[in-house]
């Protein structure tokens, strides 16, 4: 059990660092989701299934999704502004 925990803690550190080091926002979102999944497995291994369920739903699905949509909204708005058609927001 402790070996699994060690590996999981290392994975958490690695994926957390990766979120910071990846500079392209759209890739960063997927690294963030991966970090959420690693945290979910870690919480499960630490016998906290309630927290794991929350982390899986919020950290790996909801937050990346909202970031993805926000990024998409910013890009489409920006592109329309450049091409001069439609209302830029």
């Amino acid at each position, binding site marked *: 059990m402790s070996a699994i925990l060690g590996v999981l803690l290392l994975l958490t550190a690695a994926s957390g660092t990766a979120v910071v080091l990846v500079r392209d926002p759209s890739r960063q979102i997927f690294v963030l989701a991966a970090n959420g999944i690693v945290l979910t497995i870690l919480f499960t291994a630490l016998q906290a299934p309630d927290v794991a369920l*929350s982390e899986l739903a919020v950290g790996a699905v909801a937050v990346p999704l909202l970031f993805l949509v926000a990024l998409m909204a910013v890009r489409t708005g920006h592109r329309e502004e450049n091409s001069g058609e439609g209302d830029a927001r």
Partner: protein
Amino acid sequence: MSPRLRLAILGLALLALLPGAAATIGHLPDFGSTIAAYGETINAIAPGERHVANMVSFINFDIRGLDTLGEEFMLLAAITGTVVLLRGKRGEGNTDRAMRLHGRAMLPRSEAVQLACRLTGPLLMMFGLYVVLHATVTPGGGFQGGVILASGTMLAYLGEGYAGWRDAVRSHWLDAMEGGGALLFALCGLAPMLVGAAFMQNVLPYGTFKDVFSGGLMLVENAGVALAVCGGFTQLFLEFMEETRVPDGPEEPGEDSA
């Protein structure tokens, strides 16, 4: 502020905080060695006092129910704020066309994706309902189940596309779910006072240990949280997704205060 000054301030702060942090960390119990006294107490009293097998729900909905009520309204306020902010400029109308980047081909959705979403979507919703209903028996509860249900609606978007998803998800229903859930939770606090008990006192029969119907008032509070979280998160998804739709026409002038 120059980088050197910033580093100097960081160094000073670290020097000042380090002894306290070291002392605190030194006195922490070893990793995974013991269960805290509070946890031991909860484990000891929950099955006898409330016939509940999930200690986390016992804490959230019973002995610290007031805290959860506060969190409930925090969520309500946060989502209301987001909706006001995003919908303020856009209005309440909707179209079924999503915006698209120029020059990017719109590939039709593959049948495999559609099939996978149609298969897994209902199953995920079923699992969400299971997590909600078994709040007092197995891990999970209103919040976790509610977020799973909200994620399930996103599978409809993935499988059916923007128009299909928009047809299935009605904004007014989500408003009603979100507000109604929070109201239900607040009423769970007030209703016991009608029969002379304290605020949020568990006056309903506790049911049988390890049964779906156990925990009394907790089940009603749990349903309120599930409604509010499911409605709230879906509303959040909806408002964010609406940001990417094509505007109906020229936006009304003079509304932009920024």
